[in-house]
C-alpha cells in the first residue's frame, strides 16, 4: 500500500474535474476500507472464528453421537431426550441452581454491606479495602488447593480449631451434606471483593447534597439507604446480578480442584457434567447438548433481567 500523502491532492480548493474527483474519492474510500480490514481482520478471524463457528458446530454436534475420534452419526433429538431422563444431569442442574441461588444474592448483599462499611474516610481504610479485595485475584485453582488443605478432615487447620474449641471434627468437603455450602462460602470469600469494588465506585456517584438534605429533613440512616442510596445503585446492582449469575451458573474450576463433583454427586454442576461427558466419557454430542441447555438457561435469565430493567426504566420515566 502506498503511503503517499494522497489527501493533499484532494484538499478542497484544488477543484479538479467532477468525474476525476469522484474517482479519486472512490479510490480513497477503497483504500480506507482496505486499511481498515487489514487492521481488524486478525481480531475478526480470532473472535468470530473461535465463537460463531464453535457455536454452530456445537449445535450440530448436539444432534449427533460423537466421541471426537471416530466419525459420528446423526441422532436427531435423542441426546436432548436422554438428557432429561438422566438422573446425573438432573442432579447437576439441581446443584447448579442451589449454588447459584445461594452465591448470587449473598455476594451482592455482602458486597453492598461491606461497601457501605468501607465507604468512609478513616485511618487504614485503604488497607481494609485491599484485604477484602485481595482474594479476588487468587485463582480458583489456588483457592481450591488452599481450602482442600484448610478443610482437610485429618490435617486441616479447621478441624484443629474445632478441636481446640471442644467441638467434634467435621467431614467438610468429604461430607455430602456440607460440601456444596462450603464451596459457596469459598466462592464468596473471593467473589465478594469484586462486588465491593464495583459498589464502592458507584457509591462515589451518590450525590452528597441529596443525602445531606434528607438528613436535615430528619431521615434516619435506614431511610437514606432505602430511598436515596439504593435507587442510585440500581443500574450497578443489575449489572452485578447478571455478572454473578453468569459466573455462578458456569462454576467449574473450583469444583474440579476440590471435590470433582463428589462426594456422592453432591457438588456435580452442569459445566462439570459437560466436561465429563465430552472429555472423559467421550460422548461429545451428549455433552454439547447439555451445554446448549445451560446456554439457553443463561439466555433466558439474561433476557428476563434485561426486560425487567427496561420495564423499570419505562415506569420510572412515566412517573417523572
Amino acid at each position, binding site marked *: 500500500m502506498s*503511503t*503517499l*500523502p494522497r*489527501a*493533499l491532492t484532494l484538499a478542497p480548493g484544488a477543484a479538479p474535474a467532477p468525474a476525476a474527483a469522484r474517482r479519486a474519492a472512490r479510490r480513497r*474510500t477503497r483504500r*480506507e*476500507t482496505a486499511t*481498515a*480490514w487489514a*487492521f*481488524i481482520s*486478525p*481480531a*475478526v478471524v*480470532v*473472535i468470530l472464528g473461535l*465463537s*460463531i463457528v*464453535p*457455536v454452530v*458446530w*456445537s449445535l450440530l454436534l448436539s444432534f449427533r453421537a460423537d466421541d*471426537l475420534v471416530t466419525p459420528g452419526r446423526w441422532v436427531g433429538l435423542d441426546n436432548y431426550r436422554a438428557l432429561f431422563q438422566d438422573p446425573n444431569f438432573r442432579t447437576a442442574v439441581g446443584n447448579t441452581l442451589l449454588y447459584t441461588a445461594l452465591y448470587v444474592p449473598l455476594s451482592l448483599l455482602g458486597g453492598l454491606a461491606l461497601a457501605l462499611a468501607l465507604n468512609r474516610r*478513616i485511618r487504614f481504610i485503604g488497607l481494609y479495602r*485491599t484485604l*477484602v479485595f*485481595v482474594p479476588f*485475584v*487468587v*485463582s*480458583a*485453582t*489456588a483457592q481450591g488447593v*488452599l481450602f482442600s*488443605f*484448610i478443610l482437610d478432615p*485429618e490435617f486441616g*487447620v479447621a*478441624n*484443629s480449631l474445632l478441636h*481446640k474449641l471442644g467441638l467434634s471434627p467435621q467431614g467438610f468437603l468429604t461430607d455430602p451434606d456440607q460440601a456444596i455450602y462450603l464451596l459457596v462460602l469459598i466462592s464468596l470469600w473471593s467473589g465478594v*471483593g469484586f462486588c465491593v*469494588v*464495583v459498589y464502592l*465506585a458507584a457509591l462515589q456517584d451518590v450525590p452528597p447534597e441529596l443525602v445531606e438534605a434528607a438528613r436535615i429533613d430528619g431521615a434516619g440512616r435506614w431511610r437514606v439507604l432505602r430511598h436515596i442510596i439504593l435507587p442510585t445503585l440500581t443500574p450497578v446492582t443489575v449489572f452485578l446480578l447478571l*455478572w454473578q449469575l453468569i459466573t455462578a*451458573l458456569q462454576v*467449574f*474450576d473450583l469444583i*474440579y*480442584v476440590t471435590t470433582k463433583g463428589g462426594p456422592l454427586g453432591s457438588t456435580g454442576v452442569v459445566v462439570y457434567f*459437560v*466436561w465429563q461427558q465430552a*472429555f472423559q466419557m467421550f460422548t461429545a454430542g451428549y*455433552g454439547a447438548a447439555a451445554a446448549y441447555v*445451560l*446456554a439457553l438457561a*443463561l439466555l433466558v435469565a*439474561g433476557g428476563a433481567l434485561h426486560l425487567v430493567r427496561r420495564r423499570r426504566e419505562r415506569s420510572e420515566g412515566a412517573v417523572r
Partner: protein
Amino acid sequence: MSSPTTSRRPSGWHLLLAPLTLCFALPLVWLALSSVMSNAEINRFPPALWPKGIDLGGYRYVLGNAMFPRWFANSLIVAAAAVLSNLLLGALGGYAFARMRFAGSRALLGLMLATMVIPFQLTMIPTFLVMKELGLIDTLGALIVPSLVTPFAVFLFRQFFLALPREMEEAAWIDGCSRLRVLFSIVLPLARPALATVAVLTFLSTWNDLSWPLIAINHDTQYTLQLGLTTFQGLHHTRWSAVMAGNVITVLPVLVAFLLAQKTFVQSLTSSGLKG
C-alpha cells in the same frame, strides 16, 4: 454540627472493620505460614498453628523434584503472549472501529460484542476440535491462539479512542503519515490507561485459567501453573507443605502485580463493570 468524621477520636468502625477484613486475609496468611512448616508440624493432630522455624523443605521439593519451574515459564509465556497480542490486535481493531469508515463496520462490531455473551462451555468442545485440526493440542499454541484477542479488548480501545480529540491525528495524516504510524506514534502514547486495563485483565484471566489448559493439554511438560498445581496436589496430597509452597508460587505473581498496581487493577475492574 454533627461531623463525626473530623473528630480526633478513633472511629468505632475499626472495631468492626479490622476483624472482619482480617478474616479475608487469614486463609492467605495460613497459606504463607504452612508453606514454610515442616511436614512433621503439619502431619500431627492437631496440627501446629504457628511454625517453629522456617522450613524451606516444601519449596526445595517443589523446585527440585517437580516441574514447577517449567510450568511457571509456560504460564509466563502464555500470559505474556496473550497480553502483547491483545494490546496489539485490540488497539488495531479498536482504532479501525473508532476512526475509519467502512461498509459493515457497525454490524461487525455488534457481532463481535454479541460473542461476549457466549458461555465458554458452549464453545469448548469445537474449539478443542479446531485446535486439533491446527495440530496445536498439547502445545502452548493451543493456549495462546484462543486468547490472542478478546472482543472486550477491541471494544475498550474503541471506546477510549472515540474519546480522544481527532485534530492531532488528522494533522499527522494530512502530513502524510500512514494510519499505522499515526496509531503508533500519536494515539497509543495517549492511550496508557486503556493499555494498562487491557494488560491487567488479560494477564489476570490467562494466568488464572484452569479449564481450557485442562482440555487442551495432556503432557505435563506443557502444563501451566494452575494445571500443574492441581495435578501436583492430586499426586502428593500428603506433602501439604510442598503443595502449599507450589500454591504460593502460583499465587505470588498475581499478588505482587496486584499490590504494585492496585489502582490500575481496581479501575480496570470497575470500568469493565460499569460500562458492561
